[in-house]
């Protein structure tokens, strides 16, 4: 696992608006205007969030299929997969720690 890119993903997701954008892009790719409207953010503020998401690698910019003048944003699979893998491993790690805690309690039980 690449820790630097995971750090970038976590930092990008540290903002509630950016998490909302990721939620929305999960459903389908969208235009910046749509995203601004759905989150009730001013367009420049949304642009800043989209730039942060692009820089983190979570989101990429593309062209609309029917109209190449229109820019659309979509999620990139890779960072989300990495995040999922990290979550699963973290959960496993804590399950192992809890099992060890339980074993210790049983051993030292009065």
């Amino acid at each position, binding site marked *: 696992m690449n820790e630097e890119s995971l750090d970038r993903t976590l930092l990008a997701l*540290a903002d509630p608006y950016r998490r909302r954008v990721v939620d929305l892009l999960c459903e389908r790719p969208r235009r910046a205007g749509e995203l601004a409207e759905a989150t009730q953010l001013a367009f420049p503020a949304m642009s800043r969030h989209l730039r942060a998401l692009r820089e983190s690698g979570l989101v990429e910019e593309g062209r609309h299929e029917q109209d190449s003048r229109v820019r659309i944003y979509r999620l990139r699979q890779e960072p989300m997969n990495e995040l999922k893998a990290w979550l699963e491993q973290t959960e496993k790690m804590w399950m*192992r720690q*809890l099992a*060890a805690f339980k*074993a210790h309690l049983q051993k030292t039980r009065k």
Partner: protein
Amino acid sequence: MRVPASPEHAFEVFTQEIALWWQPNGLFAITPAGDGRLAFEPGVGGRLFTTFSNGAEYEIGRISAWEPGKRLVFTWRPSSFTPEQSTEVEVLFQAVGKETRVSIEHRAWDTIPQRHAARHGFPEHATLQRAADWWRVSLAALSERLGSAE
């Protein structure tokens, strides 16, 4: 995970005997030098730190909730994380008959939006709650959608 102890005893052993039960593991090593010997300093604001055989210490995090027999919350920052990046661990102790259910939730960004909360004008708790909800709910939905998109 159910453990054979009262919530009070489970909390005490969890915090005071962590050096005895903690299992170091390679993939999630706290520092490149390993996990060392972990210890909690009791009470809110106390450190969770580890000591190495040469006497060096590393602070893993700080305790933000200390409710013996009920709840423990502390920050968690392995040395590979950047200084501004911290994750949060919440441990709950619930009595089930004569035993205790111990559950752990590790949250990756609940600690970060605290600074953002004031800026966005959200009440802090609501923001944190939303972050926690997103963590639990959306990620499962997300992984389903991502899975089907492949």
